[in-house]
């Protein structure tokens, strides 16, 4: 059962990146927080993501102390928690998304305390049952992965890991060896947000990652425009993750507005980049 599950989930990311490669396209992975700004609007956002050409989804669980995140995601998390939206309800929402979109790879972004307090095994089982293919734990560096690896493997979950231009040449292969789905290269040091700046050595990082791993590499942090996407693809990325920028767009919309502008915005980022 678990090996079957593993085969299925692995194939969502593997299929995706194989297909994108054939079509000479890049991956576009939008991010939002589950339950934000409201559960209903969150479902609509996901519809807009998919209609706008999202290749996979990165969905966050709200946390009281998101140390890796900028003001927008912090505030969004607070909104979700103040509405009383808990982890069980979050997983319910994930289940609805999975039922509607059976083929799209979905990874959850979480802070480690949420995993620990629910219990590592129970957490992994519950998110797998709700439809996640993998997760990214914002505050669990490679030093801690051994704690959760057995549970990840048992439930066939893939772990996306962060790499940066400060990641040493010794750490990079260790991180890659523990990861699945794709590697998440941050464009710059710092926290999430739409600040437009990237490390000059990003191209070098992508090349290094390519050397020590077969995993696709997607770049995130500060991506908000078509030209950023073009730059990242030119530097050798397989795709981009767009978080704060798309959430800022969602925030601009009023509660009664149609979510269509989000779809159109994503389309500008997802159309193929002609080499």
């Amino acid at each position, binding site marked *: 059962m678990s090996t079957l599950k593993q085969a299925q989930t692995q194939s969502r990311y593997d299929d995706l990146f194989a297909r994108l490669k054939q079509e000479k396209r890049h991956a576009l992975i939008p991010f939002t927080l589950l339950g934000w700004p409201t559960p209903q609007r969150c479902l609509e956002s996901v519809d807009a993501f998919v209609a706008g050409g999202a290749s996979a989804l990165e969905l966050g669980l709200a946390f009281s102390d*998101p*140390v*890796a995140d900028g003001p927008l995601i912090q505030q969004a998390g*607070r909104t979700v928690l103040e509405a009383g939206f808990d982890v069980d309800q979050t997983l319910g929402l994930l289940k609805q998304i999975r039922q509607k979109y059976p083929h799209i790879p979905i990874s959850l972004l979480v802070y480690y305390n949420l995993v620990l*307090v629910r219990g590592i095994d129970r957490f992994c089982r519950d998110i797998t049952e709700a439809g996640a293919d993998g997760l990214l734990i914002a505050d669990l*560096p490679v030093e*801690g992965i051994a704690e959760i690896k057995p549970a990840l493997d048992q439930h066939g979950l893939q772990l996306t890991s962060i790499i*940066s231009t400060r990641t040493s040449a010794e750490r990079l292969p260790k991180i890659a060896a523990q990861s699945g789905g794709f590697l998440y290269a941050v464009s710059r040091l710092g926290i999430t947000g739409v600040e437009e700046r990237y490390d000059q050595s990003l191209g070098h990082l992508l090349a290094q990652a390519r050397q020590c791993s077969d995993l696709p590499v997607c770049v995130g942090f500060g991506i908000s425009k078509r030209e950023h996407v073009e730059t990242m693809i030119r530097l050798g990325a397989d795709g981009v993750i767009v978080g704060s920028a798309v959430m800022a767009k969602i925030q601009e919309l009023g509660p009664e507005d149609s979510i269509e502008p989000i779809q159109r915005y994503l389309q500008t980022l997802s159309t193929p980049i002609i080499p």
Partner: protein
Amino acid sequence: MQSLGFFGSFGGVYVPELLVPALEEVESAFLEASQDADFLKEYHHLLKHYAGRPTPLYEAKNLSKRYGARIFLKREDLLHGGAHKTNNAIGQALLAKRMGKTRIIAETGAGQHGVATAMAGALLGIPTEIYMGAVDMERQQPNVFRMKLLGATVHAVEVGSKTLKDAINEAMRDWVSNLQDTYYLLGTAAGPHPYPTLVRFFQQIIGEEAHQQILEQAGRLPDQVVACVGGGSNAIGIFQGFRNSSVQLVGVEPAGLGLETEHHGAVLAKGTPGCLHGMKSLALQDKDGQVRETYSISAGLDYPLVGPEHAHLQNTGEAVYASATDAEALAAFHTLAETEGILPALESCHALAYAQTLAVQGTPEQIILINLSGRGDKDLHQVMAQQEGAPHVHA
């Protein structure tokens, strides 16, 4: 990392990947510095001639009579800056300088650590920026003013509960964005490795002195050593001088309005295992792991986690942990003021208050050594407000 800094199942390095290289750098600089005679000489020189060490150990005879035991106070309140925080701030600022960092950041709750860091920054000529929750800024205004006078920039943290926990979050966010030139000077024996070990190292001077002083003055070790616990730096510092002995180590947490209410900060009593601010420890949190807001009359103890070594010492039984309420701490404040002419920090009052409980259970010959971690000037506003609200009851 050369070590992951575990104390039993607590501690570790649970931070975003981006921070790991920075922690590796701090760890290796610390390991080198702590073996370097020149570094230690400079540290001890400054502690003696700038900060005023050794601090006295004072036998409080009037208080002893009142409590019914021999009470000794380790007078960290007489240290330059008004609290034990100066030991750590000087040590780490020297480390920052050694590492070639040109900017120091720190978080502060009561403002004492912010003041100590601002002092150390001014002394060593390193620009210093302090993150402080807006709520804490409101209740600790004199310390905010002090930090500014000492040349530090104070950033008001307006997110979350606007207290110490959020100030730490903001300092970590700043650090991750400015790793090249910035040193994060953490204020307590908590956070990711190497901080719990490093802060203990710079605070163990309290215990070393107290050990020697009590032997000189009383001719024997005390029965108990009592210290308040916020993150746990003053407690771990004094405990360090009495480990592996017959001395009972007692940490005292803030029970706020009572452990039976939601309004306290008694993490060791009421917390559950969790992971935040880079460490596995105990935390006050809900069923999902969302971290709760805490409450204490003393801003310096208002923190929903605790240093990992304390969680471990509680597990092994090497130390015991108790708590004192706001009302008990306030009563102890007045008692010490009236009996000894000393105005203690409200943080330290928690240790004083619990020492009375211990005294009542023991004999008049019993020796209780209390770490008086700071002076109460910063809390006068708070104490005045309490007196206006409710008439003060003589203990």
